[in-house]
């Protein structure tokens, strides 16, 4: 159980790092817009390009090819 004397300070250190990171994120404005970020994760990063109907291959076909 003596390991507690080492492990607890390490846990506190990690906690301090987490707080530091979180404060950095808040200060750099990453939490300024909570409404959008909640939604953004669901949106596609790259919008689907309209594939040319004759020559284009559909994304599914591309996926199956080796």
């Amino acid at each position, binding site marked *: 159980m003596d390991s*507690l004397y080492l492990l607890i300070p390490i*846990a506190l250190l990690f906690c301090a790092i987490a707080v530091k990171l979180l*404060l950095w994120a*808040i200060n750099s404005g990453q*939490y300024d817009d909570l409404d959008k970020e*909640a939604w*953004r994760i669901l*949106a596609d990063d790259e919008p689907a*390009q*309209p594939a040319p109907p004759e020559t284009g291959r559909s994304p599914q076909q591309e996926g199956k090819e080796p």
Partner: protein
Amino acid sequence: MSPSTEAPEKNEAELCYHCGEQVPAGVKLAIDIGGEARPMCCPGCRAVAGLISSSGLGNFYQQRTAFNERPQQQDSTTLEQYLIYNDPELAASFTTIDEDGLHNASLLLAGITCAACTWLIEQSMSRLPGVERALVNLQQSRLDIRFDPARLPLSEIFVRVENLGYRPRPFQTSTARLQMAEEYRTELRRLAVAGLGMMQVGMFAIALHAGDIQGIEAGYQGLLRWVSLLVASFIVFYSARPFFSTAWRHLKVGTLVMDLPVALAIGLAWLASTWATVSGSGQVYFDSVVMFTFFLLLGRFLEHRVRQRHTLTWFDAESTLPGAVTTKCDALWVTVPRIQLQGGETVLVKAGATVPVDAQIVAGSSAVKEDTFNGEHLPRAVTTGDTIYAGTVNVEAALQAKVLGSYRESRLAALQHSVELAQTKKPQLAKLADRIASWFVAGILLVTTLTAVVWSQLAPEQALWITLSVLVISCPCALALATPAALTSAASALRAHGVIVRGENALDSLSRATHLLFDKTGTLTEGSLAIADVRPLGDVGTQDILAIGAALQHYSSHPIARAFAGITGTTGFKDVNYRVGAGLEAHQNGGTYRMGSAQFCRQLAPDLPTAPDKLLYWVALCREGSPLAWIGLNDHTRGEAGDVITSAQQAGLQVELLSGDSSAQGPLLARSLGISTVNHGLTPQQKMAHVQQLQTKGAVVAMVGDGLNDAPVLSLADASFAVTGATDLARTQADFVIVGGDLHAVIDTWRKARQCRRIIGQNFTWALGYNICAIPLAAMGFIPPWAAAIGMSLSSLLVVANSLRLNR
């Protein structure tokens, strides 16, 4: 669940795919998006939707959760006006320059209706050459864009945003805005620190509690207590600081606030625990301290976030005026920013443009649509010497006018001022939580003191923790959350149904409404003229009359012309010209035709009889020597109006009609809809007096109106609705804005408000009931502080969960 809702798919056949408004009969503007033909209501929507789809961003329509706003018709002048922002001096007010030469501009965008809009704007802006980064802040409707001015002029960015159907203008940072953003971050920092700290202290607390039960070596107990002290102290001094400062600030002026028992509980518990840790005896309550702090901060943070959102969508009439104006400078016409205009300068107001300042006409004659001020849809004819007002729309022909003064001196500014004034006159219904707060706090302090005194006589060593338990368990946390949680939840539910909630407290007033007042024009009616009656006077049939009328009106931008928009006109008309204030004249096969006022047509056909009656707006049509017809125009009643009024009456609301129109149409319309109380021909002042009179009699008044001309009376009403065609959001000042113009939303909102009131009642009952049951138990020493803290948190969570039921 996917983020898309059914809303965009509903009634696809008749609603515009882009803005959700009804497609007028006869309009065929469908466009292919995602492999299907989508109906469009106007060329504006079609242009925007076409651009979105052709840039491969058609996915937007699946992702969005609300319809877009209907874009304004664009012409070269709207795009030209943005050229002024290429002037570095003007741009400097909202642009900063990096060390590597890139510019950062902030634009405020009107028309963002849901999160998908931000995606659309970001995606399409970041594809422009020269744009390095584009970020949209949804909460503030702000676009931050980083671009290379050498490759992309600023005006091009404005134009691109406008093309997507949003209306950009420079984002002016004010001190208040900066301060609010900083406060928001500070609160978030406090909350984050408290949350992470709570996890740590909670972990040690579990070990300590287990130790109490199983037995623990004094050395380990000491260690756990010391690290808990370290973390908890940080939280108390950093995160919980606002409680102490608020309590102290109010105590100095002699008022009791909710923060006082909070600060006492946190402070006492922390002091006692620190003493126990240092002396190695007694109990520690660090877990209770941090849990308590975290939950209080969380509740407060959520409440502030909602409040902040409303301050940012602040009504601003000035923002609806054009940013750039054309003015005469040494016999040359130049474009300058509107704010630089001086009294005495001559401005050019093109046809279709919004008048930028109050001005006196020096050349030209035209008609101006003044619905901003009087709600009328028919324009007023103006000529040299007449005054035109900022915010009105020049309908017919270009005008040159002498500027009378700055925006501050304008009639529009006076109207805005009267709106603000009316708001302060509104009877304030004190919030329940505020009303009971000081009594509640005094009660808590009394009970706590009594407990402390009694227990220090009975068992001095128990007195401290029992007192702490009472303080913690009586914490008004759930009580403080009861109202804001329910209001926020109801507001977001309404938003999903096309009602934007501007003033949440109005939900409370609305739920108690006794009177429901309707404005006529634009509210119960569509707000645009339609053909109601055709009385042929010669041998020409109705069909032909309408076809001739449509052919003539095709050349006019007068509101009457819209009534003929869906009719195919007769071909062959030449030399169509418009006589301001009179009507239209055209030639076909050598014959002259005229359409317009009786006087204007009698010059051509002297035996034209007088108009049939006064109930409709009559337009005459004649051929040289022979009158052809009287065409009666009317403002269509909204289809759902009758339904809505009936269900309001069934729900026990007194329905009244307040109309500014003095004609007989008001009472007639009221009778057909089943409204018995009608007040027509009222000036805005009389409307306000009527509402105030009802309010002094004890009525709670909900009022439904449209647009800016109703704004003063709307802001006086206890709860107000504005029905808007979605283009004029910035001009609408009401607690609830119904986007898309379906009156059913009035009743839906009322029901939601009633439900919200019930939920708030339940929340209060629970929070108070819990306190009343738990305080005696705590005072008798049955509840240890850690259980008190858990009970307090569970009670708050229950309140939040109950409020979330409104979201469905």
